[in-house]
């Protein structure tokens, strides 16, 4: 990979103070350098209880230890239903409910290490099930409810799902069509809706099972290395990769909740990410609970008015959201905030993709506070690089490494080794020294793919970045051709395969088309089989097919018909030409193109 140098290594850098000056609540970490120097993950371990029976269990650290102490009546979750209902769960409540679910699993014969999948919206049952499953030492896999049947099937098959918790609607629409393709799935639990219809034959009623279960449960000794979480992430080719995290990951969740999100005991924390994504699990469930705060969980989808109302009414003090949402709010303007008072709001953070400088600054305009961007991946399990309260925010920068994390920029050598690049401003692949507690332990059943992520004592992130003279990291681009849309990674292959299922489609090439709000949207170029002619009706039909199979998030937002896709002489599809044409860029060297 060529090394290119930024020519502004010492130019003045825009900086925004990371924390409101003189705020009555002081940040947990006041001096980054000093703290980092003295930090160790062993120290972080001592902040947690450890499991009385031996070892470490996420659910004990998140819930039971608070329920056994002074915080037992403290509100752990405040759930906001989309129709206005509000349900509060104290730490004591969550402890009892998750005990019940652990007993439900035991009663069903589901054991340690077996996979419990959750496919629901943001409902309280999701949280109860996750916590109960961890108590049972089962592995939790949350799925984004907007996925279509094919992505769901792929993830449930790869992970050998044993239990599925879902809703009757999702079950009918998305699971029934693929049931016969999931031989390992033994129990389907349904969360009934307010209409109280009896559950379908062959499924179990979650509420009924929970109601009958014992409220007492003793978590068995849990080796910190036992698998606890399974998160799927898209790669370039066919199958999504199942990253496995151990109970040990809770050390990172807890520490970063405290140091990066600056969680204090009296905070009201709102992480807007869906638990189907790793952010919504690490920071939507685990980190706020281990830190003993109150978490807002909103069932409803993004809506600017509603979000502003939630911030005000529930006195949110720390808000963790995504660039797509921030950019949408910017588009809407400041009207929804007019007249609202947000005296409790103290700290804003963003994750999912690089937050553009304009958006960082907009936080100051709208809330008097900058958005603190941070960077991490499904594979890292928790925040790795961040803009911290105690440091200036550099708009556009990922920030600096979390204490306990060592990051560097590396170059790949001809013999497969990697060399660290020390010169500030040099672009290369972002790499981390392996071994932090929330580092993924494997890609499920894919040891080769896992091994490829490591070389010469570095974990290779696949993201290209550079580090400036002061140690701040700046994102440059993704190394492979996955598309990043609204914070989600999508492999073109998954999309192209489904498009090819349509009888009219001969070839399909999928790219990420830049979009001011979503960063990229999935755009497909399709060549038709002989006998088919391009038409709006055919386009709609293909898009509907894609949406039905993939779900709205992954399916292409745009389709263009082409005679055939541009290829090299050896028949390789030139995706860069598709992208260049889309952006109206010069197509560069086309000498290697086959004549069509």
């Amino acid at each position: 990979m060529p090394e290119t140098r930024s020519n502004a290594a010492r130019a003045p850098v825009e900086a925004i103070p990371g924390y409101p000056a003189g705020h009555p609540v002081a940040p947990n970490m006041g001096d980054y350098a000093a703290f980092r120097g003295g930090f160790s993950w062993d120290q972080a371990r001592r902040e947690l209880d450890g499991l009385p029976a031996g070892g470490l269990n996420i659910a004990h650290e998140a819930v039971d230890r608070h329920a056994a102490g002074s915080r037992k009546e403290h509100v752990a979750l405040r759930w906001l239903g989309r129709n206005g209902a509000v349900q509060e769960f104290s730490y004591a409540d969550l402890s009892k409910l998750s005990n019940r679910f652990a007993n439900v699993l035991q009663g069903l014969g589901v054991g340690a290490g077996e996979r419990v999948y959750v496919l629901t919206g943001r409902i309280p049952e999701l949280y109860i099930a996750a916590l109960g499953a961890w108590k049972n030492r089962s592995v939790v896999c949350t799925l984004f409810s907007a996925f279509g049947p094919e992505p769901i099937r792929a993830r449930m098959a790869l992970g050998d799902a044993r239990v599925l918790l879902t809703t009757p609607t999702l079950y009918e629409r998305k699971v029934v069509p693929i049931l016969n393709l999931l031989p390992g799935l033994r129990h389907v639990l349904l969360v009934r809706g307010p209409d109280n219809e009896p559950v379908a034959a062959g499924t179990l009623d979650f509420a009924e099972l929970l109601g009958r279960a014992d409220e007492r449960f003793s978590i068995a000794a849990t080796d910190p290395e036992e698998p606890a979480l399974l998160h799927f992430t898209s790669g370039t080719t066919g199958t999504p990769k199942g990253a496995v995290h151990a109970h040990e990951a809770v050390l990172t969740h807890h520490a970063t909740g405290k140091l990066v999100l600056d969680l204090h005991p009296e905070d009201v924390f709102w992480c807007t990410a869906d638990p189907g994504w790793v952010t919504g699990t690490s920071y939507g469930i685990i980190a706020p609970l281990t830190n003993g705060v109150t978490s807002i969980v909103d069932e409803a989808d993004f809506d600017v008015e509603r979000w502003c109302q939630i911030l005000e009414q529930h006195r949110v003090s720390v808000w963790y959201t995504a660039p797509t949402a921030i950019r949408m709010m910017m588009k809407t303007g400041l009207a929804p905030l007019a007249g609202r008072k947000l005296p409790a709001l103290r700290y804003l953070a963003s994750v999912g993709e690089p937050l553009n400088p304009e958006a960082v600054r907009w936080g100051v305009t709208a809330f008097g506070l900058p958005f603190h961007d941070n960077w991490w991946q499904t594979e890292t399990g928790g925040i790795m690089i961040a803009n911290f309260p105690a440091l200036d925010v550099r708009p556009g920068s990922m920030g600096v490494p979390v204490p306990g994390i060592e990051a560097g920029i590396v170059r790949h050598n001809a013999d497969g080794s990697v060399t660290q690049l020390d010169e500030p401003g040099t672009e290369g692949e972002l790499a981390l020294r392996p071994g932090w507690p929330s580092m993924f332990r494997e890609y499920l059943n894919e040891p080769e793919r896992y091994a490829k992520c490591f070389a010469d004592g570095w974990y290779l992130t696949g993201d290209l970045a550079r580090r400036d003279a002061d140690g701040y990291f700046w994102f440059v681009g993704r190394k492979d051709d996955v598309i990043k849309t609204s914070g989600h990674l999508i492999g073109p292959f998954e999309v192209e395969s489904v498009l090819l299922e349509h009888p009219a489609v001969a070839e399909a090439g999928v790219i990420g088309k830049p979009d001011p709000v979503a960063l990229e949207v999935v755009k497909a170029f399709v060549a038709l089989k002989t006998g088919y002619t391009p038409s709006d009706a055919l386009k709609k039909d293909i898009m509907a097919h894609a949406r039905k199979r993939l779900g709205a998030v992954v399916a292409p937002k745009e389709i263009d018909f082409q005679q055939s896709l541009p290829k090299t002489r050896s028949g390789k599809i030139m995706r860069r030409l598709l992208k260049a044409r889309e952006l109206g860029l010069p197509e560069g060297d086309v000498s290697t193109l086959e004549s069509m």
Partner: protein
Amino acid sequence: MAAYPQHLVRHRVMFDGTPVTIRPIRPEDSGMEQEFVRHLSADSRYFRFMGTLRELPSKKLKSFTEIDYDRHMAFVATIQCEDREVEIGVARYVAVDPPGNCEFAITVDDAWQGKGVAGLLMISLEDAARERGFKTMEGIVLAGNHKMLKFARQLGFRCYHLPGEADTVHVELCL
């Protein structure tokens, strides 16, 4: 139609001793070639064509098997399976601009990878290109295709990205 270069047929063995024939492709191989493409794993097909297809369209299949053995050369690796010859790998180059350059591509069936077949194909391909006056062999590899990138480096290819193209690696060899 160009005369078939019989002198380029080679009988070799893989690392484990399995016999394999490395020979230029023929028009009559179209059925075997299509079978080969269909038999590839979805991943391997994706890496080879950098897009998703299930089999070669008939025009493409024809152009892949009816070649002039000069500006377009392709070698197949075949084994004997009962009474049939089965294709387990293919490597080809096609002349591109500037004159003296050719673009290459290679795929080996998933079940037969790791046995030295790719190396045998590339030896034949590189020799043929050199003989026919080519000076540079180049290729495009998806950044996620680690096996191919490792293989290319072992063969002495230089690997680099074009600016703004993080997802594809260009590889180049002086013949």
